[in-house]
């Protein structure tokens, strides 16, 4: 199933990827092949099959509402490329 170059560029943009023209063509081909496989799967009759969202066969995996604070939030902050006091510092974002 063909996918056009603009679609590839749009997907790249949503994923924050910068692609060269060669890469756009490369992924255009690869994504097209993935879609071909999907088309093949789509030919199966699934009218009597419930949609599967999880293959584990589990449900209601939950924990009690008991606080388990992380020992060292500072360690997480320390990984930040930039920080100011207790905050993560990022480029200005405007709504």
């Amino acid at each position, binding site marked *: 199933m063909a996918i056009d170059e603009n679609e590839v560029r*749009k997907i790249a943009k*949503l994923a*924050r990827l910068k692609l060269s023209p060669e890469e756009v063509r490369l992924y255009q081909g690869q994504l097209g092949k993935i879609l071909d496989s999907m088309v093949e799967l789509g030919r199966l009759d699934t009218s009597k099959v419930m949609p599967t*969202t*999880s293959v*584990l066969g*589990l*449900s*209601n*995996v*939950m*924990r*009690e*509402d*008991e*606080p*388990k*604070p*992380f020992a060292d*939030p500072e360690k*997480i*902050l320390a990984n930040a490329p930039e920080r*100011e*006091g*207790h*905050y*993560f*510092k*990022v*480029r*200005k*974002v*405007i*709504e």
Partner: protein
Amino acid sequence: MVVGLEVHCQLGTRTKLFCGCANDGFGMTANSRICPVCTGQPGVLPVLNKRAVELAFQAALALDCKLAATSIFARKNYFYPDLPKAYQISQYEEPFSQHGGLDTKLPDGSRKRVRIHRIHLEEDAGKLLHEIGSEELDYSLVDFNRSSVPLIEIVTEPDIRSSDEAYAYLTALKEVLQFVGVSRCDMEKGEMRCDANVSVMLAGSTKFGTRAEIKNVNSFKNVKDALEYEYRRQIEIIESGGTIKQETRLWDAVNMRTESMRSKEEAHDYRYFPDPDLVPLHADPVWVAKLKAALPELPEARRLRLASTFALSAYDAEVLTSEKTLSAYFDEAMSGRPKEFAKPLANLITTELLGRLNKEGKSIAESPVTPKMMASLVELTLNNTISSKGAKEVFAKAFETREDPKVLVEKLGLSQVLDEGQVKGWVSEALAANPQAAADLKSGKEAAAGRIVGAVMKLSKGKANPALVNKLIKEAVK
């Protein structure tokens, strides 16, 4: 005006939705409630908070919604610095509940059911800071204390037709959520947030116009103002021959207008898909039945009960239901007391207590007069130890000193005189001192009794029991 509201409400759990971090980060040191899960570190797994699910289910049950037998979590993908994983865990195609409604009392006294389209569970994003105090920053700061805090989003059908109806719906919604204990709904802390979809429909038409989504309306008053502004804006465009653009607009509470959010104009493509880290959620019937049974009395039912059981006025029933803390105060003062306590208690609460708290800017929880003290004050009036005027005096003093009303009655010398002989003496004295009034009374002019009562009260320094005074005056002039 055609309006649908989307309300985000923070669930009152102890921990976040998918990790054990405390859900109390508001006003705390930035990034002091964070862990690898809620900051999106590689290799972590979210585990669903059972209490959050229970509160969400209870909210849905209280809002008359159907619970889905199975619901799933989905990833909503977008990049923004307040979203550490670059996706928000939400529910999309299979929310946990749909098709409910909330009976809303409109300002004119009529009722309207605002249908609820769906409620879903999701995690909150972090908080961005663009200025410190009044100083605008040329960068942004991120605090993830709020990241992954549990929210429910309650989406109505486009059933709301005026800003007043929107206000009434939000008021009723907040009341239910607070009563059930789903959320404190403190809007100043961002625990309840509202987006509005607004369009206009021409008179006689049944087709909705193009809608604008208004964000950032964070008080009920703002919702009202924003809807009214947006309605006028759309009408003006249509009347001048223009067309409404489907867009997201931001409410600017300072300049009282909505503005197009250009950054959001590029249509979002969230590429939702089921989150492989989370398994389906089943609304087990036994579990649901238990949650349903644990639901407290809802505000509407409570109002009706107060009015019918205790013969309270509609106004008193309304006031004593308007806030959960006030309801609890009344219930605590009433506990173990007979029915006739309700009316004088309601009076003291709605006039004296609320008046005084209001004046001092205090909340019910901060009241120096406890429910127990209030009940004892009512008891003192019902057994005629003090007059209703005396009760007010004792209340005022108790509010200042937190002293027991029984002790205060003695201290202030407010005990009523119930001794017939003593009151009889005052009555004869008063009749003798007011011969004209006494003569009028004897000739059947009952209005004259007021002057005699006044004289008795003066003689007794307000301590004579009024009912006894009236009875003895009647006997004396027979």
